[in-house]
């Protein structure tokens, strides 16, 4: 650092010119984009129009890969993924938000202890979690889940064999794994709300629920947008959790997500062209849904203002 010399107003030229500085600073990002992302992205787009038979054999086949997406399997994977994402967002946002609000409340017992505890699942092996959930939701009468619903007089269920109940288990597994992380996001956002806002609320006579709805929620909107965005992405590209839950035995394909289908087609079935086409549709889907979400949340309005 030449900046060591102490003299007022160093002559800032060349790379030190404040107009050049930001470009130097983002240079690693540009190099990274060009070096790591550009080729694979273009290559994926090209491959989605090709049939690939080996390291050097590829042939353009027009839209044929995209036409194959109209088969049952893809539609089913799409439905599974969409259903999962909807539930994922519906559960993995409000529940952690509620807990974050409770943790931040004055009356919370041992908030630091619980906050740390809730974070631990995110650090644990997903393979083991898969085994635990697989056994807990086993089809036998003696499995934990069946005993629990048995208390309410319900007949034992084959949880992991039907698409509705298996989505439930998958969402539960995801909740188990990511709840702590989302709590941290929300909790820290709530902590950064200026205290005088709440004071003002109190003076206006707002109760807890009103304060939460009218003060807390609007104040953490940016965090909400961010968590929503990564949750939507996480939902659509879910793969590991499904693999951990079923291993390779995926009954009737009910747990197969888009990424799972892409992985199977491209890698297990050696059909890279089709896999690329699936990938491109996934990309468009995530963009589309997130754009709508961002528009609805008024993200761009704020950016431009």
């Amino acid at each position, binding site marked *: 650092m030449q900046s060591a010399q102490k003299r007022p107003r160093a002559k800032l030229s060349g790379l030190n010119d404040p107009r050049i500085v930001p470009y130097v600073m983002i240079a690693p990002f540009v190099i990274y984009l060009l070096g790591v992302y550009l080729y694979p992205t273009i290559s994926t787009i090209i491959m989605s129009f090709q049939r690939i038979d*080996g390291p050097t054999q590829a042939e353009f086949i027009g839209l044929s890969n995209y036409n194959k997406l109209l088969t049952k399997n893809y539609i089913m994977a799409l439905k599974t993924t969409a259903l999962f994402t909807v539930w994922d967002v519906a559960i993995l946002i409000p529940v952690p938000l509620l807990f974050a609000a409770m943790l931040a409340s004055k009356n919370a017992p041992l908030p630091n202890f619980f906050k740390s505890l809730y974070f631990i699942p995110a650090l644990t092996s997903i393979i083991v979690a898969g085994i635990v959930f697989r056994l807990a939701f086993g089809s036998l009468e003696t499995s934990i889940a069946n005993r629990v619903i048995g208390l309410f007089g319900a007949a034992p269920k084959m949880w992991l064999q039907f698409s509705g109940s298996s989505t439930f288990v998958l969402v539960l597994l995801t909740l188990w794994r990511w709840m702590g992380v989302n709590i941290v996001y929300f909790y820290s956002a709530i902590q950064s709300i200026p205290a005088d806002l709440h004071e003002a609320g109190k003076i206006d006579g707002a109760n807890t629920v009103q304060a939460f709805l009218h003060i807390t929620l609007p104040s953490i909107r940016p965090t909400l947008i961010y968590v929503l965005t990564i949750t939507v992405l996480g939902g659509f590209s879910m793969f590991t959790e499904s693999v951990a839950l079923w291993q390779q*035995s995926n009954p009737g394909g009910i747990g197969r997500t888009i990424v799972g289908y892409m992985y199977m087609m491209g*890698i297990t079935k050696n059909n890279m062209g089709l896999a690329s086409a699936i990938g491109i549709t996934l990309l468009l889907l995530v963009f589309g849904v997130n754009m709508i979400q961002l528009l609805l949340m008024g993200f761009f309005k704020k950016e431009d203002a």
Partner: protein
Amino acid sequence: MSKKLLAVILALIMVLGCASVLAEEPVKLTLWTFQELHLQLYKDQLEKYNAQTTGPKLEIDMQVYPYEDMHSKLTLALQSGEGAPDISDIEINMFANYLKGDIQLAPMNDYVEPLKDVLVMPRLDNYARQGNYYGIDHHIGACVVFYNTEILEAAGINYLDIKTWDDFAAAGKTVLEKTGKVMTTWETSDCWSIYPMVSQHGGDWLAEDGSVRMDEQVVIDTLTFMDNMMKDGTAIATPGGNHHAEEYYGWMNQGNSASVMMPFWYTDRFLNYMPDLQGKMKVAPMPLWTDGGYKTAQMGGTGTAVIKTSENVELAKDYLAFATMSYDAGLQSWLLLGFDPIRTDLYGSEDLKQDNKFFQYYEDNIFAAIEGTLDSVAPTCLIDTYPVAADIVKQQMAYNLFILRQDPATVAADCAEELRMMIE
């Protein structure tokens, strides 16, 4: 000065030392498998190979991956032409994926052909294209039934009296009545229940000419038989979906089912995962559909193959042949892994009868169960489109029939239609 001299001498020693090491340095190969069990055999054979070889000695780096991951990595490596091992296990349901287009596996014909008379060739045909043998198996995979004699005895049944599938179904009713337990379980997320039954019955998913056989009457009849056992309550959907699920092992170990039909290679699962059944389990041949019909089905397997991109194709082939097709390799595949060997000259030999952990567990010479059936093994048609068919069986046929409880004829028709659509 002396320091410099010392350095020179040291350097010289190092160069010479390296040179002499180089001459004797073993050739390094890599091998991938998805079945940790196989390592025991590969290591045992590697030691023996190095002891007898006149050529360079081998050092093999053996890597285990989970089933899907290993096949995915192999595909990626072959696709990109980089990072493939020299030798790889490839599961039978996946094998045809690697026989498409420009085949990246090395033919083993020069080793297979001289041994044709002593090998169970229908096994190797599963891994062949146009007369080239690309994969070598470790076992026949003849299907047998594992009976829990404790349950059967409680119901007053001698397992040796079960000769036909009708006997089996009838025994099931007695078992259910007397003990309240089920006779058997059908897999709902894998194919080791449906496929052996269909195959032994003379059916298959595809014909050699590529046409679809999935909706033939024999398939519907077989599915109907299985479906009827479920209706009777004598068979249930396998807890956990398949006979490799943790949930199933625990449930079976507690003595909840009177039998399970699986390929012979399942012997070792009882030893490792169901220890409480020691001495209670007996192995018997598959019941027959008809007199004169096939006595058994050959199911599952691993075609071990040499990858063309290897720098030492010839050496890798030499080792692979030694480790899978030699007399001793066959014997060890039984002694170490509990497989039914692919060498026909082993059957009936004294070598196979030596006491070992498998005989001890089953308290019996379990080979008796398959020896009489090997003259009548149903063929299987594993053409290029077979992996697609296998998937449909695993994920739709078994599921629709045993979980969604659809009608067998409908299931067969739907699956056949789906298969036709997929392979067009």
